[in-house]
């Protein structure tokens, strides 16, 4: 019976060494240990200098995403037993600048997220006195799938277009735009069209589909983007053919 497994970590410590390097650690092969448990063991018992992010340990917070043997994965939901006999190679998520070791810089993504206005833009301001803003179960079902995104960024690592084109808004941001576009309480679609129709918007997607494969929450960003392309193309022709103003509802 195998007692340990080798974890090969891509390390980057800019103040010590300007280039990344790989370091091997031997970790006990406990049943039901996730890759995140192995990293925690390394930090607690072997090497306190290792840096990585995590929080919930249950696939909800989306902060533990890393490349595991070259594939983007939530390390808390990926088990050592899946990779026997090892070694397991852990690297920071692709397509992001690295701050240190396995910690990526998400600032560019946060900026893109703001562009698509992922919040309710009601047709008229409502006050608390107006009471609840009600929805039927069918109205909720129209967008519920897109609310499940945990911003783990696995889809950005999986998407070759993100890697090629730093202006591309990317799968999660567009899926989140759709989460509000399809919300019956929202009237912000026109504002979001301005961004989604533009360079770097939904039409930069070349329909590869890797984002939906990588998504641990089955949000299906590919589907969200394709649905947008149909809506966006209609809006494009409206803006092109109708007199100014008429196209903007």
């Amino acid at each position, binding site marked *: 019976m195998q007692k340990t497994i080798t974890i090969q970590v891509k390390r980057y410590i800019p103040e010590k060494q300007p280039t990344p390097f790989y370091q091997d650690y031997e970790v006990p092969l406990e049943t039901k240990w996730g890759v995140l448990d192995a990293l925690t063991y390394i930090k607690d018992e072997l090497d306190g200098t290792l840096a990585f992010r995590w929080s919930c340990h249950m696939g909800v917070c989306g902060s533990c995403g890393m490349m595991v043997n070259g594939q983007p994965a939530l390390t808390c939901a990926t088990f050592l037993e899946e990779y026997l006999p090892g070694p397991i190679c852990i690297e920071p998520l692709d397509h992001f600048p690295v701050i240190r070791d396995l910690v990526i810089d998400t600032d560019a993504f946060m900026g893109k997220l703001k562009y698509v206005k992922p919040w309710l833009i009601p047709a008229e301001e409502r006050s608390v006195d107006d009471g609840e803003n009600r929805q039927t179960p069918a109205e909720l079902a129209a967008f519920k799938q897109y609310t499940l995104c945990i911003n783990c960024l696995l889809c950005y690592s999986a998407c*070759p277009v993100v890697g*090629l084109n730093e202006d591309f808004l990317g799968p999660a941001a567009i899926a989140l735009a759709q989460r509000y576009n399809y919300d019956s309480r929202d009237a912000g679609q026109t504002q979001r069209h301005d961004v989604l129709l533009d360079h*770097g918007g939904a039409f*930069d997607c*070349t329909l590869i589909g890797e984002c939906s494969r990588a998504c641990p929450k089955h949000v299906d960003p590919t589907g969200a983007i394709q649905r947008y392309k149909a809506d966006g193309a209609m809006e*494009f022709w409206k803006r092109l053919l109708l007199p100014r103003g008429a196209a903007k509802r």
Partner: protein
Amino acid sequence: MSKSRNNDPFWWSFFGAGGVFSSFFVPIHILLLGLALPLGWVLWPEHGDLLALARNPLARIYLFLLIALSLFHAAHRIRFTLHDLLLAKSIDTPAAFVCYGGAIVGTLCAAMTVWTL
């Protein structure tokens, strides 16, 4: 993001229309011309009858749309496949030029052929 208008929704519209059109109708043509006629499942029509059918105004419109939209569908797909395969953003503008240019030339040829049938 740049100031120029993004034309991709324009091309995508023809890609989308071409996808729907060709996925519905091209299989019928393949079945008829590629299997049913050569294998003798149905009798070969007379050339004159076929020509008369193709000269029907509705048939002319149909043939034109089938060819032109399929060309634009292919052009867009090939452009994006080149982008993804070669993993190069720089290829995109020349590829778009060649692919859509080819589709436009093909469309003009189709229009002329269908018109002068």
